């Protein structure tokens, strides 16, 4: 006897139940709640120009959050992800403004550097068996030191200057730094990149073999190894992905603001992790979604800007943020539990 739709051991359910079971459902509800809250509480938040700012601030964080979420699903952390965004931008800045390298060539070199660091992270984690939390913390410190000391030694100051005067600047600027006007609001290139990255990551996670491996290495590494999943390759690939995302964000920052500084991205690594967790990723690995992480970043971006729109005392920013974060995650959890009960 094969199980048919009407198995007496299944109480009820259906397509809706299946949707409600996805890890990102809670984050979606929380995002809507935050949106509605600020849309009602402030005048500007829900306008096109308002949306433009919170979308923008969510976008770069969102890209990183998605990459970090993949890594977290794969059971690892990357604390060097934040510093990487500064590192790649600074590398391009130094190579073009100081050494006169062609801007596209500089971007390529920067990408190669980033991927090399990612590869090294992965290799160290897999070879030594040390927790990635520690290994990437080491890389983070080293990158931070390079960002500061090497850049200072080369250009004499701690921020890239005169980027806009570099030959062919307008070409990558068009790709990474431009903005399109949609319904009266300026939508930056980073927002489109964010959507693209989220879509690709979702597809890889759910529809490809590699996605299956990512869930497996994060959920039960030994078991995955035993059934023949190439654990090391998968994890190293994930570290390289997060480094690559760091490069992308570095370029977006560099060409949107035409500068990066030594401390760019320092401390952001935890915001990425927070966004991923708010979006339903398990810290222990093996569970989560890219869309969820993107929604987590959206919640973060909306909260951050919404507080400004609401004109609340800015010194309380962090406190509001904390309460909002807790609120969002609690709502998230409540929705997920409910969904599981009534699946």
């Amino acid at each position, binding site marked *: *006897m*094969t*199980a048919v739709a009407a*198995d007496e*051991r*299944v109480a009820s359910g259906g397509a809706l139940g*299946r949707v409600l079971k996805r890890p990102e459902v809670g984050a979606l509800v929380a995002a809507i709640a935050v949106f509605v809250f600020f849309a009602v509480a402030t005048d500007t938040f829900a306008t096109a120009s308002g949306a433009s700012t919170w979308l923008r601030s969510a976008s770069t964080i969102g890209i990183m959050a998605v990459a970090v979420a993949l890594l977290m699903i794969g059971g690892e952390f990357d604390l060097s992800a934040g510093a990487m965004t500064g590192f790649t931008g600074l590398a391009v800045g130094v190579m073009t403004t100081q050494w006169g390298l062609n801007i596209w060539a500089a971007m390529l070199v920067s990408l190669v550097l980033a991927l090399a660091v990612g590869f090294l992270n992965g290799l160290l984690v897999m070879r030594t068996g040390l927790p990635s939390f520690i290994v990437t913390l080491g890389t983070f410190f080293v990158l931070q030191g390079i960002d500061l000391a090497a850049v200072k030694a080369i250009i004499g100051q701690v921020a890239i200057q005169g980027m806009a005067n570099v030959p062919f600047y307008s070409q990558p600027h068009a790709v990474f730094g431009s903005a399109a006007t949609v319904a009266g609001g300026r939508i930056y290139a980073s927002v489109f990149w964010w959507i693209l990255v989220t879509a690709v990551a979702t597809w890889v996670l759910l*529809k*490809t*073999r*590699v*996605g*299956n*491996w990512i*869930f*497996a290495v994060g*959920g*039960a590494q*030994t*078991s*995955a*190894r*035993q*059934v*023949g*999943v*190439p654990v090391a390759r998968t994890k190293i690939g994930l570290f390289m992905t997060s480094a690559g995302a760091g490069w992308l964000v570095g370029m977006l920052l560099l060409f949107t603001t035409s500068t990066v500084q030594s401390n760019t991205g320092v401390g952001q690594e935890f915001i990425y992790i927070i966004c991923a967790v708010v979006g339903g990723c*398990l810290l222990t690995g*093996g*569970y989560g979604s890219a869309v969820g992480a993107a929604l987590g970043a959206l919640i973060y971006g909306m909260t951050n800007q919404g507080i400004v729109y609401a004109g609340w005392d800015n010194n309380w920013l962090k406190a509001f943020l904390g309460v909002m974060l807790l609120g969002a995650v609690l709502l998230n959890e409540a929705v997920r539990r409910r969904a599981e009960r009534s699946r």
Partner: protein
Amino acid sequence: MSALIEVDGIGKRYGNIIALADVSTSVHPGEVTCVLGDNGAGKSTFIKILSGAHAHSDGRLVVDGEERHFSSPREALNLGIATVYQDLAVVPLMPVWRNFFLGSEPTKRFGRLDTGLMKKTTKSELAAMGIDLRDVDQPIGTLSGGERQCVAIARAVYFGARVLILDEPTAALGVKQSGVVLRYIARARDRGLGVVFITHNPHHAYPVGDRFMLLRRGRSMGDHPKSEITLPELTALMAGGAELEALSHELAAELGQDSAVAQELSSEVSELKTK
């Protein structure tokens, strides 16, 4: 026919713990090699070496005439060695169908997973084992112990190419499912696969086995072809004759003479003695 796998004086240490020492046997195509032994005798350790999950510390492992030192199960899998581990090697949070195909996912164009095929196959392979799942989308961690065991077996049988290794596959199974598994083993043997079958139950081992290797405290107590050993001998060997006898007396006293276990034990002991 030449041996698929040959082990010669193989041994394994964990730190200073010697889990296995000086074990030799061989796996031939179309034959079932049973590994029997007490708890902690080193059976799982032995098959973990064959399947590449642990590298051996001593001795030689020869596959297809070539000496090997597996550093990952992938290498063994690539040589056509599929394994059901005692701890099942499943990823609890992943759906049943993803677990079933993990590591050997079928894809369509552009590397897209063939999810339709995967779900269908999972469902039908499990149904063939008498496991009728409500939903292959359920995380495998929510299945019962026996259901999980069946998924692991079905997977290994489905992907088993030349050698099939099973570590206590029937332990968590009911009478019916155990029968199904024994049938699978017999079929795999008939298709020319070499099978390594680990079990505590000599009644399960004897009918399907061609040779029987006994482990005791990490050492081999002999490697017997079926022609040289009887079921009672096997049972007695496993538990140790004298201890078995004492136990059967005790059980008879406590459970009554009609107790099946006591009877079983005493009959085996007596058979052993008459030899």
